[in-house]
């Protein structure tokens, strides 16, 4: 078996092969047969934005950090996908890559069936379609710009006609009514919730198809959170907007997402419909994340910090912290050796529930 590290280090040209074949390309001959069966499931129809075997590496203190280490993820039309994980798991890097703000080391971002081209003109076009909402609305707004200018920024960059009309409509869609009342306000005169609405309006002004929201409510007051989430759901219902919501909050995923992908150390370890993944998690990591929520009956507090993307362990990348392996249940199922030495295949971009875990494969 090719060791993951070696495989990740090999330069690979971006392929146009369908995602199902990508897993094969990365892990040649001896990919586990179970993973194969999973890949046969067809990708969801109407996929809008997709990451195909994306790898993103950074130099970090003299080493290479593999922030995103092989991810297939598809966002369908009108679908809200939650990308969940701890800080440092690569979820923000993946989101930035989907926006074209980061260039994958290998693999490709596919929008509307065509791979993203990193020439400045096509990137600019991509950014009309895929918009970003950041965590901290206070920081995302230039304190010297009025609400009008903040929302008009996108339309001005792209030279849209009827600027005032566009801005007013976008503000109204984001729930700031009547829009004219907000035109001349400065961010510091608004509440946190209103600021986030301005950021969302700024994104909506370009009529995007996809919103990528990085912890959209993490820095908002508790009572305002629900309102912003309800706004995002409403936008999906009214405008058919798709969204990728990056968060560490599983409750948020439960609140608004159709599908959830759990990321650990640069890979998606479990994904599927929210009801399935969050009520019957199969990956030990997902189980642990759910168990530390207040109210949950039995806690599995993983020790240690999330490991370092510059030193991804061999075998299953979660094995060093895995409670199933530590408790000996993996040994009972006879997979402990594979957990320690055999890397798992990259999960394909399918909408059904899937998990990258030797133990779960054997026991289910």
């Amino acid at each position, binding site marked *: 078996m090719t060791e993951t590290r070696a495989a990740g280090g090999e330069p690979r040209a971006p392929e146009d092969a369908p995602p199902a074949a990508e897993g094969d390309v990365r892990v040649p001959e001896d990919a586990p047969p179970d993973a194969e069966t999973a890949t046969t499931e067809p990708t969801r129809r109407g996929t809008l934005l997709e990451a195909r075997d994306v790898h993103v590496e950074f130099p970090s203190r003299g080493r290479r950090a593999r922030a995103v280490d092989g991810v297939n993820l598809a966002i369908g039309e009108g679908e809200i996908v939650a990308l969940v994980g701890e800080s440092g798991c690569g979820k923000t890097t993946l989101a930035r890559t989907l926006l074209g703000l980061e260039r994958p080391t290998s693999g490709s971002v596919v929008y509307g069936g065509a791979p993203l081209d990193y020439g400045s003109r096509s990137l600019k076009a991509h950014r009309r379609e895929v*918009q*970003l909402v950041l*965590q901290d609305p206070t*920081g995302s707004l*230039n304190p010297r710009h*009025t609400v009008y200018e903040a929302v008009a920024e*996108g339309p001005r960059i792209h030279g849209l006609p009827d600027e005032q009309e566009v801005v007013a409509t976008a503000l109204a869609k984001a729930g700031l009514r009547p829009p004219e009342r907000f*035109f001349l306000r400065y961010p510091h005169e608004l509440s946190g919730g209103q600021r986030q609405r301005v950021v969302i309006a700024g994104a909506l002004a370009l009529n995007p198809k996809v919103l990528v929201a990085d912890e959209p409510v993490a820095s908002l007051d508790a009572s305002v959170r629900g309102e912003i989430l309800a706004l995002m759901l409403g936008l999906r219902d009214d405008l058919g907007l798709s969204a990728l919501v990056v968060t560490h909050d599983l409750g948020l995923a439960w609140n608004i997402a159709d599908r959830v992908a759990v990321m650990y150390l640069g890979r998606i370890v479990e994904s599927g419909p929210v009801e399935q993944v969050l009520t019957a998690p199969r990956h030990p990591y997902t189980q642990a994340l759910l168990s530390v929520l207040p109210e949950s009956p039995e806690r599995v507090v993983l020790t240690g910090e999330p490991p370092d993307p510059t030193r991804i362990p061999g075998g299953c990348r979660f094995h060093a912290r895995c409670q199933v392996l530590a408790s000996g249940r993996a040994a009972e199922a006879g997979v402990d050796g594979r957990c320690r030495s055999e890397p798992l295949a990259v999960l394909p971009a399918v909408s059904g529930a899937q998990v990258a875990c030797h133990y779960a494969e054997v026991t289910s």
Partner: protein
Amino acid sequence: MTSVAWTRRRLAFGRFWDGFRHERAGVIGLAVLVAAVVLALAAPLFIGESVTNVVKGTGDRMAAPSLDYPFGTDESGRSILLMVWWGSRTSLLIGFLAALLTIGIGAVVGIAAGHFRGWIGAVLMRVTDWFLVLPSLVTALVLAAILGGSTLTIIIAIGVTSWPSTARLIRAQTLAVEARPYIERSKALGGGHWHITTRHVLPNVAPLLLASTTLEVASAIVTESTLAFLGVSANKTSWGTMLRASYDWGAVNQGAWWYILIPGLCIVAVVMAFTLCGRALESVLNPRLRKAGV
């Protein structure tokens, strides 16, 4: 749409002025400055270049202050008052233009070095460092000597030697601005380099530029005086050349204190006024200093 932008600007200026009014030192500085500039601009209405003409001196040689010559006279019998008045035109002109040149180069290099993080930024910073460690006064002297003495030469000599510290300052501020999430948002909206530097970075470093311009004018006036005192001048009467002449003609030995004191005081007053204004601008325009009490 222009009306929205215009209203916003008017509001912003109103707020700025409100803040500035409360900085008493700044208001005093501004008053002195306005007076100095108005006097310098209005000088040709009352007097002409002839007041600096050696052969047209009408008073006694180094006469003490009197009713006819309130600030005394110099070695050629010219009125110090009128010379200082006329000389302010050269001093202020050189001060302003040299400062603009300094700020112009500094801003462009600083923003570029802060915005382009790769090799472009690195090269620009090495160049800046190289200029920073050049002994600026000596360089200015040499440059002025090579280019020959004219007002333009002096301006270039001052501008070319004093931009690196501004560039460093602006680069630091640019880096701080570039780290803000709204830059990321702007990129995600599709904004290019030009858009980000002109729409976000420049307006954010502008207050700093404005404040440092005023400080830079002060230092350019001092540099001009120093250069003149060291013998490199535009061959026009300025406060610096007057000081030089007072030294050449041994004003101290002859007890002609007014010859040294008056141009000296002019330099101090104008430089102080610029500095006070600059500090006040800094505290009004810098949101971090303004935070208190909100």
